[in-house]
């Protein structure tokens, strides 16, 4: 706990710390993980200094561990996110996120003529290229690339 930005957000005894979230994606991460409907103690800080992004955000969720699958859902908005598993104030494990092969209900298809942008439908994509974040729509079969990627 020597890191100064860590200290800007109060430490937790047990739980999960999600670090290196781009500051402008904090609320998207909260919503993707359903933290807005979570009863646990949650603290977060945003617009913290970071060498990598300029501004980063951090979320601390007490007494909770996440399924790998759930955490990977945030990879679309926070590909460099780092997860620290905390036990008794100590980091016992560090994890990274990876973009899942199948992405359901997070991303928006860039194609305005896609049925998913015209009716209430849960979107579904497969990852065709993880290096450039290219997602193929299950419905219209068009590929949405990172530059056009919007999160629902």
């Amino acid at each position, binding site marked *: 706990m020597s890191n100064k930005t860590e200290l800007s957000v109060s430490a937790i005894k047990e739980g999960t710390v999600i670090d290196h979230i781009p500051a402008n994606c904090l609320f998207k991460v909260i919503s993707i993980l359903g933290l807005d409907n979570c009863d646990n103690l949650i603290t977060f800080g945003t617009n913290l200094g970071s060498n990598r992004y300029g501004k980063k955000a951090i979320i601390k969720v007490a007494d909770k561990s996440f399924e790998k699958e759930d955490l990977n859902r945030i990879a679309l908005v926070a590909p460099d996110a780092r997860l620290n598993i905390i036990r008794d104030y100590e980091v016992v494990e560090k994890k990274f996120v990876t973009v899942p092969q199948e992405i359901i209900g997070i991303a928006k*298809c860039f*194609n305005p*003529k*896609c*049925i*998913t942008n*015209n*009716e*209430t*439908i849960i979107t579904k994509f497969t990852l065709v290229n993880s290096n450039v974040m290219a997602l193929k*729509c*299950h*419905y*219209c*079969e*068009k*590929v949405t690339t990172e530059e056009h990627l919007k999160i629902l």
Partner: protein
Amino acid sequence: MKNRSLVSINDFTKEEILKIVELAKEFEANPNRDLLKNKVVASLFFEPSTRTRLSFETAINRLGGRVVGFTDASSSSTTKGETLKDTIKMVSNYADLIVMRHPLEGSARYASEQSNVPIVNAGDGANQHPTQTLLDLYSILKTQGTLENLNIFMVGDLKYGRTVHSLLQALSHFNPVFNFISPEELRMPDEYKFWLDSKGIKYYEHSEFTDILSRADILYMTRVQQERFVDPIEYEKVKNVYILNNAMLDNTKDNLRVLHPLPRVNEINEDVDENPKAYYFEQAENGVYARMAIMASILGLV
């Protein structure tokens, strides 16, 4: 393929494609069979397409089936704000099979997930039109005697033309060589070229017709539409470059056939029509047999 929807040509394996085109041949030899007797097919055209609809409805009638449906969205409840989901949920309780044309891309896949009965995609926006692809394949098989090892020329709008994209994917099962002739603005998109590369299929790109046409087995023509060009001057420059006339067929192979999904505007000069290598009208007729084969297979009747 019984009870499976036909949404995208990629849903069918090589063997399934071959089964359909072989079956189309049988239906052509014996077109009036009562296989769809006592069956009701819903024909839902959320946008008008007279050509495709008549082809399907002829196929259904030749098979002895009955048709219900609508011919454009204004005569359906869609104009009253009904969702596609609700329309499909309702109609799939009435009919044994749904043929659907819709302006939005991905609508057929979505409908197939909502429906209790199989969906045949009769075109979903610029995405897929798999029955067109199967009739194209049947036309190629009929005129060449095989689908294997052919030299396929595709001409015109290769960027937006869904028929050429689907045909390219389907033919890739059969070791083809492709030649693409198109204006710079309308070249075959990279995603299809990468895909061909990954399959080890050879293709060559050209910006105009040359004497290389003498190697072609199939010349697949498409329309170059003015609205595809950002710059009208570019359209003016290229609009006459991709027009086929009879003299251009002089030094081509005897087995060459000219295909076009129709309707044509001016990209095939009318002097080609009398050439025995012109095949586009027969191609349209083949659509009826291909659609008979598709519907009979999906309903498990053959």
